[in-house]
């Protein structure tokens, strides 16, 4: 298969996963278990994606740990998304210089 064939195939499979539930499920789900399950999904998935991947994201674990800690503290203080993201990058950059 050509590279373009692969690229379209990968895009199609990915889009199908993203769009099917949105188009097929039109009504509010009433089942309490499923509702609860879906309530927890974002928290679990984002937490699992963040740690430990964030620690290794810069190639310098000390910088990653410092950025993680800074982001947690700022988020506990309810800072905005952009503030937390930029502060994490700044901390990672500065610790990386040491």
């Amino acid at each position: 298969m050509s590279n373009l064939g692969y690229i379209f195939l990968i895009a199609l499979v990915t889009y199908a996963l993203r769009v099917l539930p949105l188009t097929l499920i039109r009504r509010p789900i009433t089942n309490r278990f499923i509702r609860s399950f879906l309530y927890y999904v974002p928290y679990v998935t984002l937490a699992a994606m963040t740690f430990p991947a964030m620690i290794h994201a810069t190639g310098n674990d000390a910088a990653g740990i410092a950025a993680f800690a800074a982001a947690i503290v700022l988020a506990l203080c309810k800072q905005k998304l952009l503030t937390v993201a930029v502060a994490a990058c700044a901390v990672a950059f500065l610790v990386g210089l040491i």
Partner: protein
Amino acid sequence: MSNGNKAAYLRGIRDGLPIAAGYFAVSFALGIYARQCGLTAAEATLSSLLTNASAGEYQGFKMIAAQSSVWMVILMTAVINARYLLMSCALCQKLSPSVPLWQRLLLGDCVTDEIFAISAAYPGSLNPVYSYGAFSVASPGWALGTLLGVVMGNVLPANVVNALGVGLYGMFIAIIVPPAKENRVVAGVVILAMLLSFIASHLSFMTDAMSVLLITVGLSAAAALLFPVKEEEKA
């Protein structure tokens, strides 16, 4: 556009800017990898415009280089991106049933990890226009980063590219920590998810995408059984 939609779109753009910056850094690295896999700049950029998925594209480029079979590509892409199926399920519950099909088809293209995250955090019912706003700045950032990664992998100093790599995670933390502060079950679930993910990262037979998927399904199901949410805590 109505005033409400305009405000939602602008708000989406504002929240999409840090995503675009983070995407740029990640997709820059993806572009460098695409080149190693033998893709041209046009092919890699097209892939990023169409797919918008970091782990999925990374694995995809690997399979293109290996000339994998069609079934292998379909299966691996589905497994790596299965979390989008769950995210889409969660997101459909945030939409008013009156949202028309064409909007749902459009919103489907916007379900990336980060745009899902900010859309799930949108207060009340989701106005899809908010997600389009974020997507309209984030997706070009993703495609542009991929393009530049292929054509000039060393344009930015390495330490700057590396530091930008934590931005997306910083945003995830800003999304999950405030609700965890308010709700002990969410706090427990977040800490446990990180702990399990840490353990899984030391298991060589698990890819990152697999472990995120297994932890998401297992832990969310366990939490739903043990701590079902009350009606007012809608997802």
